[in-house]
């Protein structure tokens, strides 16, 4: 699977920054999955539990109190003032 740069950013610093192959978040229109090569877009993330998959297939989970998702050609940024990596 193709990789993309994922950054999970909070005002106090980046909670995660590295390569990932998939990201699943809950947007205003329901759950959405992001893969590499997605068209650039911005959406609102609802308070929820989100998942992402690393290139070595390990799943990671984080909880967010809501924020923004910014997708650029091969860089995905999750912006939220409240984020906690659960594992």
């Amino acid at each position, binding site marked *: 699977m193709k990789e993309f740069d994922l950054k999970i950013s909070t005002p106090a610093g980046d909670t995660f920054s590295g390569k990932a192959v998939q990201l699943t978040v809950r947007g205003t229109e329901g759950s959405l999955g992001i893969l590499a090569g997605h068209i650039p877009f911005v959406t*609102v993330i609802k308070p929820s539990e989100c998942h992402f998959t690393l290139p070595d297939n390990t799943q990671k989970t984080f909880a967010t109190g809501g924020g923004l998702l910014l997708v650029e050609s091969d860089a995905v940024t999750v912006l939220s*003032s409240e984020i906690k990596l659960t594992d």
Partner: protein
Amino acid sequence: MSANIKRLKARIKSVDSTLHLTKAMQLVASGKIRKATEQLHASRSYTDAVKSVVSALARSKECAYSPFIAGHKAGKNTGKTLLIVIAGDRGLAGGYNSNAFRLADSVNADELVPIGRRSVDRAIGGAHGRMSPVSEGYATERFTPEDSKRLASAICERYLSGEIGRVMIVSTRYVSVLTQNAVLTQLLPVDKNASIEMFSNRGKDQKRSNKEDAAPKAEHELEDGGYMEFEPDPNSVLSVAIPEYVSSMIYGAVRESFASEVAARRFAMDSATKNGIVMKDNLSLEYNRARQGAITQEIVEIVAGAGDKQ
């Protein structure tokens, strides 16, 4: 002569105790610089990302009439300016506080949100404008993202209700350990022209590649031809992005200012310590000369006295 010696001794003692103070403050500031710059760099990445989202929104056609971008319509807009003034928690930081205050004085502000104890003290003294009801009197060192979020949502609420028409912020930009500049930035309405270049460039590249596959949706095209999709629509994203933007801009500015304060203090205390050492050396030399002079004088008097007796 002995009065002079006594006076010199007292001065040396006082310079010495000042030196202790400046040295201690310099050490404390040096210790804090690393943490302050780390926090600054951590906050920059978030602030830049939020800024790029908002600048893309500001350039989208749908958001052009939002009060956050276009400003309030005539009539609803009270024209009041809210000014956030970020200064230090303490003095003895060279020109750091006075530069920020001088810049703040140049703005005709109706409401004031001071951040930093010096700034709060000044605002209570009624230096410029009156205190805003949203102000809680913060210290820069312990200013948290939560404080910033609370402040930002209170400001956005007042802005939307039309109680204020403009939000400006005075902060100090950290350029390097030796250079810090006081800057005035407009937060709301969002300044379209101050948008970040990198984002529009990236958007343009993407648009080109999109054209090869399928025609981009014209409705989300940005004014300058960049391309970015917003889900569900630009205005809903804007309503979430703006408080986040204001909050991150305030938090980022506080971190910039705090790093500047610490760097300015270290520099100021470093030169104060150097000057103090030179002063102490000169005074010690003068003191030793005076003491030696007094001893020589005494010996001369004793010898003369002994000579008289013989």
